[in-house]
Every structure is written in structure tokens, then in C-alpha cells.
């Protein structure tokens, strides 16, 4: 099997979106920078751990090779992951063990952008459906949540990699976490579903607690069992 898989080619190039945080360096005083960074990290312990960073010295900051090295070491000591630098000679970045990015669209200098006020909103992967989902229709929210604000008929099928919300009567099937996310949940305003499933663990309507039918219910996975509870 394995050799067959490799017969087609030794590698594939795939485009993936990953967030890189830009550390904009506004001072050449690395000690001061690290001190302020410690203050920020202490507000949210663990949140920044492993975060990939791109170091971008501001135009007015003259960061020499020694300063850059101290910054990189200081960041690594704080469990951050500086991966690349921009706006400096490639050799200087390489000497600090960093990659060097061309064509990097860096935010304009200035405090307004630095505080992220004019950031464009990130595209959400949540799929929203406002019209009734009819028998025979299938809706799949790929890579995110599914929110339906209209009735879902018997014979219709909702699927999502994440959570499923139905703010109306749910009569069809709802399958959350179809790629295996056991933390996904199903929320519905009125449970009359034929089948609900999370990460492949399913329950048919006849197995559901009669007392919950027709009411607002949240469904989650506990171990290998689906747990239905009134909202």
C-alpha cells in the first residue's frame, strides 16, 4: 500500500492558511521590549506559547545583528517561535537563524495600525442558512460551524465539521464534528430529529428521551455516548 501511494510522487505542494503574528519592533532597546512583553504574556499565561512570529523592525529603528540575536533568544526563552524577519538584509536574518520573507505585506508604521484598529475582519468559516432546508437537501459546513435559522424538514441532512445550531424545528438529520471533532455540539430550538450524530456516534429518534422531544436541546458527546439535555 505504502509504495503504491508513493508511486505517484514523493511530495505534494498544498496551500494552507496559517496565521503569522507580526512583532513590530518599535525600539532598539531590546531589554525594554522584553520587559513589556513579559507584562503582556503574564496577562494570558500559555496563550502565546508556540505562537509563530515574524519580526518586523519599524523603519525608524536601527536593529543591529547583536540586537536581533538577543531579541530572538529572548523570544525563544519565552516559548515563542520567531520564524522569519522582514525589512532587513537576508544575511542578517539568516545569522539569527531566521527565514527572510519577500513580498511581505507589512502594516504601515504608526500607532493606529499597531493597535489593530483598521484590521479587516477575518473571514469566518461559519455557514449561515436562513431558508428552510427541505427533504432531500444536504448542507455541509466545511471546516466550521453551521447555523440554520429556518426549519429543517424530515429527510434533510445537516453536516458540519464544527457545531450545528438550528433556531427552528429540527426534523431531519444533524451530524456535527463529521471530521471527528468529539467536542462539537448540536443545539436546536425544537428537537424532532430523525437522527443526531457527533463524530460518528449517533442516536436515532426512537432512542431519544421522549421528554426532550419538541423542546430546546443541546447534544454533546461524553465518552462514546451522546448526551441530550434540555437547554
Amino acid at each position: 500500500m505504502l509504495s503504491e501511494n508513493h508511486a505517484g510522487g514523493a511530495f505534494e505542494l498544498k496551500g494552507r492558511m496559517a496565521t503569522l503574528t507580526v512583532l513590530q519592533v518599535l525600539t532598539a532597546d531590546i531589554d525594554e521590549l522584553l520587559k513589556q512583553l513579559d507584562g503582556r504574556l503574564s496577562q494570558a499565561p500559555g496563550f502565546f506559547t508556540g505562537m509563530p512570529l515574524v519580526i518586523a523592525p519599524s523603519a525608524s529603528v536601527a536593529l543591529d545583528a547583536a540586537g536581533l540575536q538577543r531579541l530572538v533568544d529572548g523570544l525563544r526563552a519565552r516559548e515563542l517561535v520567531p520564524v522569519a524577519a522582514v525589512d532587513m538584509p537576508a544575511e542578517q536574518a539568516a545569522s539569527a537563524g531566521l527565514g527572510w520573507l519577500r513580498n511581505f505585506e507589512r502594516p504601515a508604521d504608526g500607532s493606529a495600525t499597531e493597535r489593530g484598529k483598521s484590521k479587516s475582519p477575518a473571514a469566518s468559516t461559519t455557514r449561515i442558512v436562513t431558508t428552510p432546508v427541505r427533504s432531500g437537501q444536504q448542507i455541509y459546513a466545511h471546516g466550521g460551524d453551521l447555523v440554520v435559522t429556518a426549519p429543517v424538514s424530515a429527510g434533510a441532512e445537516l453536516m458540519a465539521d464544527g457545531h450545528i445550531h438550528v433556531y427552528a424545528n429540527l426534523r431531519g438529520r444533524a451530524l456535527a464534528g463529521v471530521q471527528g471533532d468529539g467536542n462539537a455540539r448540536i443545539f436546536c430550538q425544537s428537537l424532532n430529529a430523525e437522527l443526531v450524530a457527533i463524530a460518528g456516534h449517533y442516536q436515532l429518534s426512537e432512542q431519544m428521551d421522549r421528554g426532550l422531544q419538541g423542546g430546546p436541546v443541546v447534544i454533546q458527546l461524553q465518552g462514546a455516548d451522546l448526551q441530550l439535555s434540555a437547554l
Partner: protein
Amino acid sequence: MARIIVVTSGKGGVGKTTTSAAFGAGLARAGHRTVVVDFDVGLRNLDLIMGCERRVVYDFVNVINGEANLNQALIRDKRTEGLSILPASQTRDKDALTFEGVQTVLEGLAKDHDYIVCDSPAGIERGAHLAMYFADEALIVTNPEVSSVRDSDRVLGLLASKTRRAEQDDEPIREHLVITRYAPERVGKGEMLSVEDVCEILSIDLLGVIPESTAVLNASNSGVPVILEEKTDAGQAYDDVVARFLGEAREHRFIDEKKGLFGRLFKG
């Protein structure tokens, strides 16, 4: 520009052709130039219900194949001014309908009609798909029982996804619900779904409720659209449907159980 109205249901035998005939006759009686097109190729019925089966010479498929022109195939109704029918072929099957052919025929009819009523065959295959594809409005004919309601729901899904308006991202098809063969006393006994149940499941606007009535069978047998039998309950119900469709506000009738003498005495 003519409005194209499809009369559809998914399930067979629920009253699509009866509704098409009555609705078309009602529109024509209200002064609109109307043509009813039978899409049920191979199971031609509309001509029987409208009493013109002896006058069929050319049909829909002949026009599509260029063997006759529209004027030769159209049958003008003798009772109702401004009403025509385009009969289906009885000797062919649904594959004889082509996408381009249907489009050309509908465009030709649109030139000198106000309404084109497309009587869809049962099912969701080619004939039904072509009948709904070019529609601007849809009458969903449903009986108050679960399988009919489920099939109508499926058809509503197709109207919202597999039609010209859906594919071109135009304003969606306007959907109207017509509940036929409604028997309030059987709803009372729990043998049938109620109007409220059906409306709740399908969540579209209710255009009218046609009561279960011997008048429908009698009218079909004598080849008269039941709307022309003005003294009958079904005839009046279809008259309400047409009036509401044309924008008139009318109270829904024939929904509540008729009370017998004792019922009236004791329940007021």
C-alpha cells in the same frame, strides 16, 4: 410578460391536473389570457379533465419537434373565453421533452398569454423538472397525509435549487400551498393532518384548502373544470384560490368540521 406557474406536488394522484384545470379556467374567467400546458407526456389527462380530448390533433411534442406550430396544437376552450390548452402526447415518453424545446414553446406562448399554467407530472424526474424549471410561481398541491407532505417538501427544495430563477440567482419562485382532498371530520378523528400541521411542516403561504368532494369526481367525469360548478364546495374553494392568487383577501373556508344539528345546538 407572461407569468409561468407550475402546478406540482411530487406525489401522484393528489390533484395536480384537477387544480391546473380549475386554476387555469379561473384565471381565464377573471379576464386573463391563459394557457394550460400538459407536461405529463405519455399519461395525457388534462384534455380529459377539460373535456377536449376529442379535439386533440397535434400536441406538445409535435411542436417541440417542429411537426406543427403552436397555433395548430393549441386547443381553445369552448366554455371559457381566453382559455387554451396545449395537450401532451400520449404515444411518447418524457424523454421527448427537450430543454431547448420546452424553452422555445414557453417563449412562444408568452407572446400572447398572461399566464402559462404548467401541469407537472408526478415524480421529480425529467418531466417534472422541465415543468418547474422556467416557473415564476408554483402551486404546491398537497394532500393532508405524511407521504404527500414529505414529497411536497422535496419538491420545494428542488424549486429553490434546480430552477432557472435559482440558478441565475434571481428573486426566488413564489410558492403557494394548495391543500386538496381535505376532510375536516377525518382530521378531527386524527386520521389526517390538519391545515396547521401541513403549514407548519412546509412553512409556505397557504393559498387555499379544497375539501374532499364528490363534485371533483363528477366534474372530471364530465370533462368540466370543477371551478365552473359554482354551486359545489370544491368549485367555490377553487374560486377562492384564484381570487387570492390575484390579490383579493378572502377568508379561508372548508377548514372546520360541519356541525350537525346536535353539534350546533350544544356548541353554538
